């Protein structure tokens, strides 16, 4: 009996994921260029939300300044393009900027937890914003940097779409593997009780530092996708509003759920880009939605789906028992 149930579940998983793959692959063939660009935006925003969800899910650390890391990476590319560096040089500069800024965030995570981490990252994000605004010789100040095109094989919107999806999928699969690794288990142990893990002999500081660095690296990737997509970066990309929206994505989709951030990103980007053309008060709608989710659906959209599915399953389950 359990064997058959297991086989059935495997079959469902294979079926659902191949359907999802077909749907993902079909996007450029069935949708308009505008819609493809919109979906790409969802993917890029989703990747940034994934980076927030990594820390929120495994360590209960909510970063309210994650856009600062993404912006550092974007400015890195933008500056390198302005200097006339080749692609490898651009990527190296972006990576260096990402790692340096992430290290500051990671250092902060060692000293703070809970709401203090939230406020510390908020401040760090605002420092990046302030620097982007003021160091105009490097960042272009208020006008930002423009003309940041992706490498030639990714210039078409469908090419860039597939590339973005590939990055997102690789990151999500890799993170699922990490979550199940001893490293991931230690992180969850730290979330449950930092002091207990410390007395078990784990170097809690090193694990937290590494986790924030990994999350920062993913945020940097998201920054790269975003800047290649819009070919432009300005201080607002590091601002409080950006970072807050990313957290809203994670919460709406379902914090700690693998697919949550991407679903949340789709909801937010759709509200921001599509609903806004019909309904001017979309921030109000988004704010109300956040309040409703926090109050009545703490698992977010994905958590709600899970709950609905398990309540559908329950009768069958009790039948086998009885």
């Amino acid at each position, binding site marked *: 009996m359990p064997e058959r149930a297991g086989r059935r579940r495997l079959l469902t998983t294979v079926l659902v994921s191949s359907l999802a793959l077909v749907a993902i692959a079909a996007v450029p063939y069935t949708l308009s260029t505008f819609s493809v660009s919109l979906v790409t935006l969802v993917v890029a925003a989703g990747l940034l939300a994934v980076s927030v969800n990594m820390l929120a899910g495994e360590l209960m650390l909510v970063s309210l300044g994650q856009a600062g890391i993404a912006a550092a990476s974007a400015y890195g590319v933008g500056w390198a393009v302005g200097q006339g560096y080749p692609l490898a040089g651009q990527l190296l500069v972006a990576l260096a900027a990402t790692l340096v800024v992430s290290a500051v965030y990671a250092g902060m995570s060692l*000293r703070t937890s809970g709401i203090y981490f939230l406020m510390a990252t908020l401040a760090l994000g605002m420092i990046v914003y302030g620097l982007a605004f*003021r160091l105009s010789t490097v960042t272009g100040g208020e006008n930002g940097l423009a003309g940041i095109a992706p490498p030639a094989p990714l210039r078409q919107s469908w090419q860039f779409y597939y590339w973005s999806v590939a990055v997102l999928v690789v990151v999500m699969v890799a993170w699922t593997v990490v979550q199940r690794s001893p490293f991931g288990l230690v992180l969850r142990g730290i979330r449950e009780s930092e002091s207990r893990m410390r007395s078990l002999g784990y170097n809690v500081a090193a694990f937290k530092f590494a986790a924030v660095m990994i999350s920062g690296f993913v945020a940097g990737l998201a920054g790269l996708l975003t800047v290649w997509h819009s070919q432009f970066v300005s201080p607002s990309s590091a601002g409080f509003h950006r970072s*807050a929206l990313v957290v809203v994505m994670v919460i709406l989709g379902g914090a700690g759920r693998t697919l949550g951030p991407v679903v949340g990103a789709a909801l937010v980007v759709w509200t921001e880009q599509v609903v806004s053309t019909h309904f001017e008060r979309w921030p109000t709608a988004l*704010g109300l939605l956040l309040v409703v989710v926090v109050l009545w659906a703490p698992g977010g959209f994905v958590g709600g789906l899970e709950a609905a599915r398990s309540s559908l399953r329950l009768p069958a389950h009790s039948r086998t028992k009885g």
Partner: protein
Amino acid sequence: MSLTTLATQVLNGVSFGGLLFLVSSGFTLIFGLLRVVNLAHGALYLVGAYVGIATYTATSSFVLGAAAAAGSVALLGIGLERTVLRRVRGRELSEVLLTVGVSLVLADLCLALFGGDPKQVDVPSALAGSVTLGGFAYPRYRLFVAALAIALAVVLYVLTQRTKLGATIRAGVDDREIANALGVDISRVFTGVFAFGAALAGLAGFIGGGMLAILPGADVDILLLALVVVIVGGLGSVKGAAIGSLLIGLIDAFSKAWIPDLAYFTVFAPMALLLLLRPSGLFGKAA
């Protein structure tokens, strides 16, 4: 730097610090008792500013404008605490996220109702103009803001340290459960303190309208400054908020004069440094 410019910068710092204290004292009071990081505090400031300006324009009474700003935002605070925040009491992250949602809604509604053009409070003639202080002129209104902040600090000190209500609030800060068990209706105290903190934010918005432009985005700016102040001073400590306000006000004034390129950085960097070295702030209790 001449003595006059030095004195001007010091006064700029002190008066801006005064405004920061009006905002951050409410923020820190709310955190001290309810343990809520109210990220909607900036939005409350903005609501207060707009309501105050509208009332002031309609009645041409500065006092009525201030009263309307404080009163309307206090009512808003009561509504928020009773209907929304109460449901997730004690779950820190949920509380913070709720206030983020509320701030999105409030800021957007302000934009809908009052538009996006910068607004300012036309200071009444009694507070307008400048006073001559030992050879240089300084805006009278900025001195008024500094004086108001000092008066508020005194009132808050007397209220919390010398009255029965203050003792009740301090008891709630130290140990909610025991205070409740001793017969204090702690839930009513919670609502009261939240309303009072909100009223201070609303008042600060109207008063700040005489110094700074009121426009969409001003809510985030002032919220971030208030956050810096209370983190430097220590979350929950009114004394910390006072000293933090003065410190950040002065840093802001001098960095704007000396290194305008890094004005933003110089305010946030001390906060990051302090969080790294002493996360509980100058006067905060260790977490």
